[in-house]
């Protein structure tokens, strides 16, 4: 097999040449999904709104989680996590399902993964915009409220880190899914478990008395700190805090930045190790 894998720098250097391919693949993804259905892009809003409604009823009304404005708490945490799930699952499939392309034309296969994750990101940004409008209109509590100022400062960085983190997961999983077909099923299960292991429907602060010092282990959940970046401004109306170790905004950003970049660079390096054989295995 190929003697050497390209380095991340070599790979990143080659990518600008394929910007037009990336653009066309993203447009293709979105077009095929929505163009020829009567309600078009509305579907991308209906599905998460429907899920949110169900979760609000189950966890907020029936199970009574004791979180004020539970719907707002869900918007702030679940929307970014749904992007993460969608981007990981669909990104992991992207090389496999575009086998007909990489068997016949040369281009860096990571473009497929990046395109899929980017298409998901665009959907997420739409969801987020609608969510923010709802938060501005309705989220005014005595303890918690939405803050547009904090959101405008925090969200660009938070979205970038979430995007890099999702790419870091999707890239190696996409390559391994080509080689190990069982992986696709394992990913779907793992993502389901991950939603419940991350404080999305519950609040780490309020279960801390049950968990005791074990709550500190949540610092190892790489998704948590990135989600917390969203929840700070969107739900609490303040700077993001690190919930696991009780740290302030600096700790929150530090962990999130470390997770985002480490996962992206590590994931890309792992992808590069298998890159050369994808066209003949897929």
């Amino acid at each position, binding site marked *: *097999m*190929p003697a050497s894998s390209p380095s991340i720098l070599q790979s990143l250097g080659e990518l600008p*040449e*394929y910007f*037009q*391919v990336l*653009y*066309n*693949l993203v447009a*293709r993804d979105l*077009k*095929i999904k929505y163009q*020829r259905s009567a309600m078009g892009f509305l579907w991308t809003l209906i599905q998460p709104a429907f899920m949110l409604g169900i979760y609000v009823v189950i966890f907020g009304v029936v199970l009574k989680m004791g979180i004020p404005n539970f719907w707002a708490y869900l918007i702030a945490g679940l929307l970014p996590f749904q992007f993460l799930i969608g981007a990981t699952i669909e990104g992991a499939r992207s090389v496999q399902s575009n086998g*007909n*392309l*990489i*068997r*016949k*034309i*040369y*281009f860096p296969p990571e473009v497929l993964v990046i395109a899929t994750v980017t298409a998901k990101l665009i959907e997420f940004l739409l969801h987020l915009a609608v969510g923010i409008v709802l938060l501005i209109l309705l989220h005014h509590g005595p303890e918690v409220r939405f803050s547009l100022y904090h959101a405008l400062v925090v969200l660009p960085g938070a979205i970038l880190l979430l995007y890099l983190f999702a790419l870091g997961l999707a890239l190696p999983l996409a390559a391994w899914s080509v*080689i*190990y*077909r*069982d*992986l696709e099923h*394992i990913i779907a299960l793992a993502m389901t478990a991950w939603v419940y292991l991350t404080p999305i429907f519950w609040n780490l602060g309020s279960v801390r008395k049950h968990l005791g010092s074990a709550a500190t282990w949540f610092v190892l959940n790489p998704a948590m700190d990135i989600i917390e970046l969203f929840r700070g401004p969107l739900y609490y109306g303040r700077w993001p805090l690190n919930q696991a170790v009780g740290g302030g905004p600096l700790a929150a950003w530090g962990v999130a930045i470390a997770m985002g970049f480490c996962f992206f660079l590590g994931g890309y390096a792992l992808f590069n190790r298998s890159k*050369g*054989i994808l*066209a*003949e*295995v897929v």
Partner: protein
Amino acid sequence: MTQAPPIPTAPPTTAAPPAIECSGVWKQYYFYAHRPRRLKEVFAGGAGPRPRITPGNTSEPVWALRDFHLSVYPGQTVGVVGNNGAGKSTLLKLLSRILQPTRGQLRVRGRTAAIIELGAGFHEELTAKENVYLAGSFLGLRKRQINELYPQIVEFAELGPHMDMPVKYFSSGMHARLGFSIAVSVNPDVLLIDEVLAVGDVGFQAKCKDRIAQFQQGGKAILFVSHDLATVKSLCQRVLWLKEGVTMADGDPVTSINAYLEHYWPGCTKG
């Protein structure tokens, strides 16, 4: 059948470096080196060498290409013939960078357009027009450049009235027309063609051969893989015969093709 235009036989008088250069290229497919594995085998088996799959009972590893050497100079058209599985498509896929060689060096100088399979890069749900832009971007074109090339692509393909139709409703001939038109529109320095003229009708085949002749006169390097030996003879100045990844003959078209035919059907070229 269009006559091959008179082209000086290479290597040319100019000191131009070869457009295609292969030296000591070996290719073994991943499948033959690594058995497809399931996760449970990874956990159960752990490290260590993986069993090799070999056809039949031979312990001989399967090589798609063995110690392959080739230089093609600008202006040369080289035909590649051989039975199925001889390594012809592997060669083109290596040259177009889709595959990586197991050992050895390959080099292609200049812009390369590979027609490995017509319609490659098409998406069935998109319209023909949208597919031109998608396929064009794979060939390294910007949107602006495709805008400029678009009229001539449509004209060459003769698909004017059908460009807004999703290509899933296209016939295989229409696919072929569109794919060939896109590939030749980029004016490549090196053209790799794999058995693609067979799908089009007689009129379109003639048109494609005319276009190939233009490329030859324009000093392009062309590698032409085909089972249509008459076309190979008429288009190429040099023919390579591959058998199980090994070069059996390389030289004058008639000599190579006769050697190929005689090998499998002794006496067929006599009388």
